[in-house]
């Protein structure tokens, strides 16, 4: 603790006390997060044996090389980036629009505000089945309704493998926009009315008020939720896999590669490490440039 000698005794005591206070968190993070991360990196250099009585074999970088040489990996990577961009932008636009509407006063607003949260708070498996049910060919209520407008009743929109990407993207936007709407709405309510009044006195129209007051005020909220949703959607497995077997995003590639048949844990660890590095770089750049930390 020689570095503490520079401080006065009181400061020194304070610093030690501070460390004591944060130590439980530091220990917990080390044990529950850092250890698994490093163990995962360590495993990625091995051919992990599941057999009873045989040891893990060190294979150097070959797990990484095999993955990077696999064209399916790159295709899945591209699909995942497209999926993440579309769903994040889509749910932000929808969330923003709905939040602006819900910020206006109208009869029954509280009820509508609560109902809007349903897609996000309902258990995933229940809404997946509801979607599949309403769009069932022939018997599905929505399909029956759509036939009034000339759609074929034998059409099976959700389960058509050619629609998989668009179906999982729309589903994800619909499911997750309430989260964004909620965050934006809470910020909208905190914007000082005086700004708008001042702008109105200066003759600003609605669009100008939105562009020069609302949007700048929302900048950091939108920036943060975009980051969170970006991270979550990049790793999204459950929603995608439950809606379609054909979406081929990276988490599904990992599942297919590492957990079907006899699990290949070394390969899984290598993919996880690659994604971890990629996300760290992107997040680092994003928080610096967009969130301006």
């Amino acid at each position, binding site marked *: 603790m020689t570095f503490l000698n520079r401080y006065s005794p009181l400061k020194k005591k304070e610093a030690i006390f501070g460390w004591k206070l944060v130590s439980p968190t530091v220990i917990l993070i080390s044990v529950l997060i850092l250890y698994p991360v490093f163990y995962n990196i360590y495993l990625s250099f091995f051919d*992990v044996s*599941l*057999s*009873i*009585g045989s040891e893990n074999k060190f294979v150097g970088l070959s797990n990484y090389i095999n993955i990077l040489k696999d064209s*399916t990996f790159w295709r899945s990577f591209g699909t995942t980036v497209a999926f993440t961009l579309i769903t994040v932008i889509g749910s932000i636009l929808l969330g923003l629009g709905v939040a602006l509407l819900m910020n206006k006063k109208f009869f029954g607003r509280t009820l509508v505000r609560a109902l809007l949260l349903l897609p996000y708070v309902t258990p995933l498996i229940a809404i997946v089945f509801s979607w599949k049910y309403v769009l*069932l*060919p*022939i018997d599905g209520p929505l399909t029956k309704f759509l036939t009034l407008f000339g759609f074929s*009743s*034998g*059409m*099976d929109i959700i*389960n*058509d*493998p*050619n629609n998989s990407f668009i179906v999982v993207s729309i589903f994800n936007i619909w499911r997750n926009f309430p989260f964004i709407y909620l965050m934006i709405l809470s910020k909208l309510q905190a914007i000082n009315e005086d700004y708008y009044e001042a702008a109105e006195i200066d003759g600003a129209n609605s669009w100008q008020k939105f562009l020069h007051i609302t949007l700048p005020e929302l900048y950091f909220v939108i920036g943060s939720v975009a980051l969170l949703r970006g991270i979550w959607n990049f790793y999204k497995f459950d929603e995608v896999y439950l809606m379609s*077997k*054909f979406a081929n995003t990276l988490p599904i590639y990992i599942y*297919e590669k590492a*957990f*079907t*048949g*006899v*699990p290949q*844990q070394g390969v899984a660890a290598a993919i996880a490490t690659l994604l971890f590095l990629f996300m760290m770089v992107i997040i680092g750049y994003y928080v610096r440039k967009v969130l301006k930390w």
Partner: protein
Amino acid sequence: MKKLFVLMMVFILSVSAIAEITFWTTETESNRQTRIKALAAIYEAQTGVKVNVVPIEENDLMTQIPVAKNSGTLPDVLEAGIEPLLLLSSENFMDQNLNTEIVNSFGDIYPGAKRLLSDASGSSFAVPFHAWVQGLWYRKDWFEGRDLGFPYSWHNILTAAKALNDPANGVYGIIIPKKANAFTQQVFTEIALANGARPMDADGNLLLDSQEMIEAFRFYKELGKYSKPGYTDVLDALKGYLSGETAMTFYSTYIMDDIAVEEVQKSRIDKFDADLVVNTGFANKMINIRPTSYGQMVGIGVLSNSKNKSDAEKFIKFLMSPKNYVYWLHMAPGGMNPTRSSVAESDEFLDNPILQRYGKAKIAEIVAALDEVERFEFIEGKVLTDMSKLDSNFVIGKAINYMFANDWTPQQTAAWAQAEAKRVLGK
């Protein structure tokens, strides 16, 4: 202080003296768990050995096993379907010698059931525990009216599907699954094997674009013309049959209570057809150029690392002793069928309202199909572990899904399946 020490030692010793075994079961439904725990409690009362029953989803098994291996918490006894048992056995998790001994000790396990869980030398990965059979359930009354014969052969099935298809009145010839999932693959397996088609030969060479396979895809697509539109699935097959919407449907013997029991049927379709059980026929095999049947065997076995193998062995024998065995099988009458002939023929097993409705002869017919059950994973006594990789990636299911979605020819479908299988296996 000394007294306390002695007391503690006695306590610790007595606790450690209680023998314990851990039993992983894939029967996770709560009513099944109640029965299994009751059996475990009886076993403990009789022997003093505590059985920790751990319910585990079959899909999670292959990810839980490595975790348990690393943390030293592998079970002593495991109950699971063929696929995970095969994979575990290939990684030396199952004590084949002991499991073979247990199988032989019963002396009355159906040879077909035994074959499905053993290698070429006859050594058992696990003890065949219970099984369901898949087949074509059909409306006997509609068939008799039109003199359509029995839907065993490809020809008869297609003729009947064509003749009974009446979409204008909401009735379809058949409901076949068209989605990329396990059910589609199960149904296709039976169809392909009836034509001698296999995705892989004994040496692991891929044969998804063979002539036999192309014909199987063609037959499947042909059936699709007389099937309910949409990418139908297992529930469409079940509900469609119960509500009289289709003349034929592929399903496992788990459909038996849905057909026969009023409350179960009402829970599915809101009404009950009391005559359905009499009007239903079951084709337990299929033939085009050779006969085959499809089913799933659930095995139970001792793991090679178990520290308490003798109790594990006794527990399996306890579960398969007639009275306990029947109690277990009646968890799902019709769905769970015995692999011991003496139990299958016993009055105790048939003493169940659902099984009685079908009668002894029908049950015997269903159980008899077990001897003919074939799977893509086994060929000439060899086990193809790569097949499980193709299965869990739904290669065949996806090919069928695409065939209907894009109106692919059977040749295109087969070529896609072959390429996809190569990709999945990294060949």
